[in-house]
């Protein structure tokens, strides 16, 4: 059976070049970068080379990169650490309603620690209005965090405009760039942000390694105390093979980004344009133009996402859904709900996220198998039979 992986928003595969770069650090080079001998030196040099590679991906200085264990850790560190470092100035933080849970839940934890939280809404495409950010600012606001792009619906946010507002008001601005760094051009100076999270497993690097960039002189409270690794901001012996892999993935992403974007955009646009022609009552979610190159997200009416996902899997196709039934908490995606999509429609959410290995034939295959799956589930759906009866009766 044909196997088609279209869940690159969850994680990307490891590139062979990245794997090759990591191998020596799984056995031959095993020293601790903090050690003062040749073994330590070899490991330290590898970490610092990777730091430079990651910095270059986002137009930053190497010493501003802090390696972490995941995008989630980077976001936890940024939200909690930046707010705590500024708590003498005030205890109010602002985040958008469609942030990843690692940002939203960190902000809620700050709430338990005596901070106040403001959620900025989004429009029907999932776009934050910078003026809403301005309105939410107060004298005691110490941190704003708005994601660069949303991985679920692909919408890219107006980070530069928001940064102008936070700069005018002297508030620290962090952006979660997990969905964008390594995928589309990200330049911290152009964006104008103070902090930025990125994750290696979103651009063909290994899992278990990520980074937080912090503009020089921005203060942060460490979450992990211990030794002086990462400039004393994130203690713990470094995960050298993973860090080396992240560096290599960053280097490759920077070098081949234009070609990657072109490839992904073609696949995405074909699915976005052709799927609604093959299946009735399908809506595209997210911004029609201003979206991630590999993201094609939809809501299919009258049926539920998990059952579509399972039937697609039985045909060898891997996708995601934001339906309540696919989440452990049995809640529909907060992103779709924040965009004003009804709970009923959000149940039919399907996310296709393309990667480098995908081909136009993969799109053909989806267009071939999905209509029958949708039809099969609709034949079972009481909502669909109600719809067909009332629409026939109404005509």
């Amino acid at each position, binding site marked *: 059976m044909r196997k088609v992986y279209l869940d690159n928003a969850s994680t990307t595969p490891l590139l062979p070049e990245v794997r090759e770069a990591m191998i020596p650090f799984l056995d031959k080079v095993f020293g601790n970068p903090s050690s003062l001998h040749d073994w330590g030196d070899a490991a330290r040099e590898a970490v610092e080379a990777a730091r430079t590679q990651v910095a270059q991906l986002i137009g930053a200085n190497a010493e501003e990169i802090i390696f972490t264990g995941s995008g989630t850790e980077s976001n936890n560190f940024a939200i909690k650490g930046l707010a705590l470092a500024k708590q003498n100035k005030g205890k109010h933080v602002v985040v958008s309603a469609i942030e990843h849970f690692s940002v939203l839940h960190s902000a809620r934890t700050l709430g338990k620690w005596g901070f106040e939280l403001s959620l900025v809404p989004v429009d029907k495409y999932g776009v934050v209005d910078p003026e809403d950010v301005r309105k939410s600012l107060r004298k005691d606001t110490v941190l704003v965090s708005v994601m660069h792009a949303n991985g679920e619906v692909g919408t890219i946010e107006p980070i530069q405009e928001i940064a102008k507002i936070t700069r005018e008001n002297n508030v620290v601005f962090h952006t979660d760039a997990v969905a964008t760094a390594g995928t589309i051009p990200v330049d911290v100076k152009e964006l104008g942000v103070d902090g930025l999270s990125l994750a290696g497993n979103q651009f063909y690097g290994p899992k278990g390694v990520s980074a937080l960039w912090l503009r020089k002189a921005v203060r942060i409270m460490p979450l992990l105390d211990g030794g002086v690794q990462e400039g004393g901001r994130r203690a713990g012996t470094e995960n050298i093979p993973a860090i080396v892999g992240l560096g290599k993935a960053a280097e490759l992403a920077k070098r081949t980004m234009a070609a990657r974007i072109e490839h992904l955009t073609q696949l995405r646009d074909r699915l976005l344009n052709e799927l609604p022609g093959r299946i009735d009552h399908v809506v595209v979610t997210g911004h029609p133009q201003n979206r991630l190159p590999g993201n094609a997200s939809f809501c299919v009416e*009258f049926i*539920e996402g998990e059952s579509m996902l*399972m039937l697609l899997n039985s045909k060898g196709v891997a996708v995601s859904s934001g339906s309540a039934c696919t989440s452990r908490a049995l809640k529909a995606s907060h992103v779709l709900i924040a965009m004003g999509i009804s*709970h009923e429609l959000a*149940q039919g959410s399907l996310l296709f996220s393309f990667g480098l290995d995908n081909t136009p034939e993969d799109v053909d295959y989806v267009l071939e198998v999905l209509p029958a799956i949708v039809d099969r589930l609709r*034949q079972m*759906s*009481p*909502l669909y039979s109600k719809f067909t009866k009332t629409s026939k009766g109404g005509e």
Partner: protein
Amino acid sequence: MPVYSEKVMEHFMNPRNVGEIENPDGVGEEGNPICGDMMTFYIKVKDNRLDDVKFKTFGCGAAIAVSSIVSEMARGKTLEEAMKITPRSVADELEGLPKNKFHCSNLGAQALNKAIKDYLSKKKTGGKE
């Protein structure tokens, strides 16, 4: 993929008794699309037994498998026997359900129950629609 038993997968991939019954003796609807799942059961009764049971379901893999197994468990049973189908017996028949999907077996048992009660109340009032 959620961790479903082979039996759940088998019923999800090949659900039994999908559809509606024309002029059913009883109809029961449970759940709503907001909470994620919705099931409608249709029954035909003959000599106090469930002669035919059909369903339509909006929902996840577990919801569809639950509807299918409930329809199979109920067919041919007397009304009293069918009323004794519980969420637990449904889940057991499916060789288990993930913890967070157990509510689906509730829906299945309740929807069938409602269909039977619908039949009984119509019978009591002697009501032909």
